[in-house]
């Protein structure tokens, strides 16, 4: 093999590869802190009566096509725990109250719109993006249907239209992006007759929650769910019973998204690891080939 040729070509390759990976690391470091305009919703589960008006409003605003009559059922529907579906971006479930059985707890589920969302980090084509106002947006035309976002989501939120052979979509709560970007609250928060959901800037909502706790000592858990869990989320919950009883995942503070991205960027850090591998391989090749050439000459 022509070694000079090899070195020349190898050098060219390394330089172009280096430029590429340099661009990669630069892109990866952006977007660390949460913008102050990030919106959120504070869900006070102690106020919810299970009327499902939020579900009805969500169905309407997103044109999900469920019949109106479906939402009038506030008895039988609660016999089974429901998950968010491709045609139901939010669902209310009823949970037994272990401290006061006369007061069941109703909990609304939807996308949490995480601050540093796993789905956004996982998406291979950037079809999921965290927008400045806090919503995790889905861009349908980019999506290749790999469903890695669903694997990544710690809340089992994104759903996939498995039944569509062509153009299946990821479906999930949009945080009513068309409404909130115009300064209006989400359809569900607007429809709620009990004021369960407080819509506003995320930072303010934390204050609201703390104040509620101060005014009603002992009524609430000390933790505001998703204030800090796994890096925090736009949708936060308050409850009077342990969140575990409400089947709300209580995640540790360490964010798996950060773990994964640290590993990913560690591998490419300033290109040192890949270049080291290339260097070691190239040098070994050179040394070992020369050694055997010497042996051949003997």
């Amino acid at each position: 093999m022509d070694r000079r040729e090899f070195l020349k070509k190898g050098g060219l390759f390394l330089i172009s590869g280096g430029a590429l990976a340099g661009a990669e690391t630069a892109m990866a470091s952006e977007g660390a802190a949460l913008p102050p305009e990030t919106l959120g919703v504070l869900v006070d589960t102690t106020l919810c009566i299970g009327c499902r008006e939020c579900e009805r409003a969500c169905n309407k605003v997103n044109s999900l096509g469920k019949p109106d009559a479906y939402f009038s059922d506030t008895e039988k529907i609660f016999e089974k725990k429901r998950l968010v579906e491709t045609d139901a971006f939010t669902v209310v479930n009823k949970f037994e109250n272990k401290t006061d059985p006369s007061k069941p707890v109703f909990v609304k589920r939807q996308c949490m719109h995480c601050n540093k969302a796993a789905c956004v980090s996982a998406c291979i084509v950037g079809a999921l993006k965290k927008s400045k106002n806090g919503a995790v947006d889905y861009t349908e035309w980019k999506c290749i249907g790999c469903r890695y976002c669903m694997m990544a989501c710690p809340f089992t939120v994104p759903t996939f239209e498995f039944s569509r052979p062509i153009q299946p979509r990821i479906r999930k709560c949009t945080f009513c992006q068309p409404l909130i970007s115009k300064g209006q609250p989400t359809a569900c928060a607007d429809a709620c007759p009990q004021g369960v959901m407080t819509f506003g800037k995320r930072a303010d909502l934390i204050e609201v929650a703390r104040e509620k706790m101060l005014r009603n000592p002992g009524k609430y858990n000390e933790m505001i769910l998703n204030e800090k869990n796994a890096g925090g989320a736009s949708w936060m919950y308050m409850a009077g019973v342990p969140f575990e009883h409400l089947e709300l995942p209580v995640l540790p503070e360490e964010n798996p998204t950060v773990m994964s991205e640290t590993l990913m960027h560690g591998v490419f850090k300033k290109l040192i690891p890949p270049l080291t591998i290339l260097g070691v391989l190239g040098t070994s090749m050179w040394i070992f080939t020369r050694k055997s050439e010497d042996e051949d000459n003997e």
Partner: protein
Amino acid sequence: MSAHEKPAPVEGVKFLTPGTIFLIMVMAAGAGLAVWRYIVGIDFPITHQSNVFPWGIWKAVNVAAIAAIGSSGFTMTAAVHIFNKHKYHNILRPSLVIAMFCYTFVGIALMVDLGRYYFIWHVFLPVMWQVNSALFEVAMCVVCYLTVLYVEFSPMVFERFIGRVNLPGPLKGFNKLTEFILKIGNTIVGKTIAVFMVCGILFCCLHQSTLGTLMVIPAYKMHPLWWTKALPPLFLLSAVAVGLCSAVAVSLWTSYAFKTKYEMKALSSLARSLPITIGLYIGVRLIDLALRDQLGAMWEGSTRSHVFLVEFFIGMVLPFIMLLFSAVRKSPGLLFFSSMLFILAIALNRVNTYITAYMPPYAVGHYFPSITEIVICFAQIAALIFLYRVVVMIFPVVSQPEKKSA
């Protein structure tokens, strides 16, 4: 390499053996079901994937496990061309061809599994690059490495056809042109192949480890026996070990199926590296479990812990112990058995990491693949073996004693 041996197409073997016919039947069944999949989508009952279990065996087996088995290509390239161990030369080509088909079928598996398979090219558009995504890195490196594998395969094509181009009928006029193109290709590849080899090994190190990083992000949905931040190095170490095992197994199986001689001298020598690579993997895995204080989890008595015991002790520790003995390394049967055992264990490890360990909230029941998923999965593996057989009979892959008369 022995002076009297040269890679040549295998001759004098009937193509359609009962085994080959069985492969064709499996492939036909898979192809038929795949048509159904494209008509109705990947919903129940075609697959048992759901909103709660979004990934099934098409990702776990046909992507992760098959990519791991395809490590034979880069490990043997490193052994022969980086560390210049030319005594393994006879094993290199079969392992390259197997790796080439493994990686090709990774791509095919994605075309079956993706919901919007026809948009797979979005991954290559720089405007859509999402560099935080582990899956993105896997996709890029797999495509780059697949290119490398085709380049590494091309010398076998050149060898076969240069000086022998004989196009049928009206295409005869292009004989000279084709010959010329092949010769140019041969020259270019010959001068640059070292770059491809080195880069191919780099791509493999990157994406084999990233296949592990893929499952880091569902951290809180994963069983502690498989989830660790050390998944990337574990996946890389196991890829090296399983790559050598599959090189050994493929060589032995090829000799058995085509009745050529077993490369026992080279294989026994190569097999001496197996206890080291497998042992290293087992060691790191145990240390990781110990550091995370999860060693006890394997005795917890759940189904998952039982699967772990099978994977770890039967699939990994047993072949490790077996391969410590030179009697095992020198016997074709035992060597094949032990390396095959480790290959299956790593395949099981990938399935466990992607499926068994996955414990999403709100899960009702477990994921178990549907008949369609299983048939399509095995049809792809059957096609892989079938294509290997075809290539071995057409191209100079297997080294055989040189014929004097030619």
